[in-house]
């Protein structure tokens, strides 16, 4: 298997004499920060290492072979002795593919802390949600997870992970964003390995062919902060994100969220009535602290015996603060909606001077049969779409949803059925009024 080949080696070479003095393989990264964007396959990596430099010119080799690092983005900056250490040249050694050599002029002899940053692809993150409704379908418990997946070709140990929600436009914007409100790379701490599985997958990670334990003893805290159109999640602590593995952390957990439990039917869009949970991303629903990134959601409901029944899995769209969130639970065969065309006639035909029909009305009578064969009561929305200039009969309870959609809202008890009958008149040709 191809494994990492991102390595740094310090070639202490006197350039004037052009003779190698020594080759030193550097110790592991002391700190690394990953800023992962979910709207583009791009991650900003900032890593810190301590180099032992000789006074004068030093050469430092950086290789990106077998990784997805963008070599044009590689940047070298001294963090200590900033005014005494300068990057003066970059060259490309013949003996190594995909490598560059920095020539560093140092006025000091000894340890210098440097930061090396670059963009890489192959590191992505996504959101996962786990929702559990109570027995009555009135309250919801919501667990939100964030998951980072590494296929970049490089292992990252002891990494601080920052996840960006929001659309990016240019690479330059990413760099700017990454530096705005950026936290310093945390100081190194001892790697506390553990091999402990947690039942709710908190701070656990799922990789290809196994389970990988996160570093910290406690589930990490996700620190959330908004930056205008962007939102940053910073996962507290340090984490290992090995190549080909995925790591998942609990973002937040909230219980007792009020939800509306309803069904919706729309011919042409849904072939069968679909069940939805509806809640708003606001304080009244004990949410609203942050936008909810798009991701997968698994929904359960508590049974009478206290166990959980799996209701379905779906993809959730991005939900900004203050917006409604409708969670689609899929079709429910226990709720049936059957629209039937009962009568269709043409009336009020007008003719032009040639005797051809120029305007007429089409009058249709529809009967919608709604059956709730569940034992509990349901609320259902039935959307009907109409083309052109139309008028609906007044003697039926309805509401206008938009320009060409009318919504029939009904509540049915367990085992109840209802028939909705309406007449629609379409005006055609010269009879069209709008």
């Amino acid at each position: 298997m191809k494994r990492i080949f991102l390595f740094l080696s310090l070639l202490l070479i006197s350039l004037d004499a052009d003779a190698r003095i020594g080759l030193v393989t550097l110790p592991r990264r002391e700190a690394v920060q990953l800023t992962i964007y979910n709207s583009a396959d791009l991650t900003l990596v900032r890593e810190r290492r301590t180099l032992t430099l000789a006074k004068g010119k030093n050469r430092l080799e950086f290789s990106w072979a077998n990784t997805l690092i963008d070599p044009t983005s590689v940047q070298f900056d001294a963090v200590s002795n900033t005014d005494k250490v300068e990057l003066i040249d970059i060259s490309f050694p013949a003996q190594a593919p995909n490598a560059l050599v920095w020539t560093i002029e140092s006025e000091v002899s000894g340890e210098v802390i440097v930061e090396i940053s670059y963009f890489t692809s192959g590191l992505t993150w996504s959101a996962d949600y786990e929702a559990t409704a109570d027995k009555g379908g009135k309250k919801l418990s919501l667990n939100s997870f964030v998951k980072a997946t590494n296929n970049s070709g490089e292992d990252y140990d002891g990494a601080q992970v920052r996840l960006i929600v929001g659309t990016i436009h240019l690479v330059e914007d990413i760099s700017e964003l990454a530096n705005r409100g950026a936290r310093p790379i945390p100081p190194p701490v001892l790697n506390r390995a553990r091999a402990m599985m947690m039942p709710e997958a908190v701070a656990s990670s799922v990789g290809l062919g196994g389970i990988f334990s996160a570093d910290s003893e406690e589930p990490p805290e996700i620190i959330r902060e908004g930056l205008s159109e962007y939102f940053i999640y910073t996962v507290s602590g340090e984490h290992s994100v090995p190549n080909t593995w995925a790591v998942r952390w609990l973002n937040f957990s909230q219980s007792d969220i009020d939800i509306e439990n309803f069904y919706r039917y729309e011919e042409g869009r849904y072939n069968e009535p679909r069940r939805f949970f509806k809640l708003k991303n606001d304080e009244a629903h004990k949410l609203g602290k942050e936008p909810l990134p798009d991701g997968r959601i698994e929904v359960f409901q508590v049974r009478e015996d206290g166990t959980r029944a799996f209701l379905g899995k779906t993809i959730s769209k991005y939900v900004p603060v203050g917006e409604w969130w409708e969670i689609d639970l899929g079709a429910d065969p226990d709720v049936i909606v059957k629209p039937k065309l009962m009568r269709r006639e043409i009336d009020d035909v007008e003719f032009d001077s040639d005797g051809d029909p120029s305007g007429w009305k089409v009058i249709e009578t529809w009967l919608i049969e709604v059956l709730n064969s569940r034992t509990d009561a349901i609320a259902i929305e039935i959307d009907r779409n109409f083309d052109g200039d139309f008028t609906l009969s007044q003697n039926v309870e309805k509401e206008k949803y938009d320009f060409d959609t009318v919504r029939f809202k009904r509540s049915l008890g367990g085992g109840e059925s209802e028939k909705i009958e309406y007449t629609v008149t379409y005006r055609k040709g010269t009879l069209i009024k709008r």
Partner: protein
Amino acid sequence: MKFDYRLPVLIAVLAVASAYYNVTRRAVPPGITQEEHFKRAEELHSKILREDGSIDKNKVREALAEYKLALDASDLRLSAKSHIGAGQMNILEGDTSAAIAEWKNVSVILPGDFESLRAMKSIADAMKENGQKEDAKEWYKKIVSEFGDSKLPQAMEVIVNSTRKEMN
């Protein structure tokens, strides 16, 4: 009785056709894409430095051959990288002029690109190493004229800045 030539002629024609088919078909080696040649070259390239710091010349020659097979790839970036790799192998073989010839192709294939800057810098550095100081200066000037007015990432800007010093 008159000898009937038709059967021997038919057999001869079939034998020739069969031989022609076998020669033409079997002469074509199993298909290896240029990307695979490039990958082989990179694999060899990454192993040419022995643990004692010496260069494995056999691997250099093998890598050079593999890079050459990928030179005219339709993927321009692959082609440019193959020219860069072939040039690096030429340098390790001690043939600077062949290396420079390879690297010159890169700025034609991917003008304005990082790979192009990388190749131009390698040409200038190789000429300087080879004692061709005036020629090297021309290439440093060329780098500055091509990349000097652009807003560049540090990885490219440092090269251009160091090049400005080399011009004088």
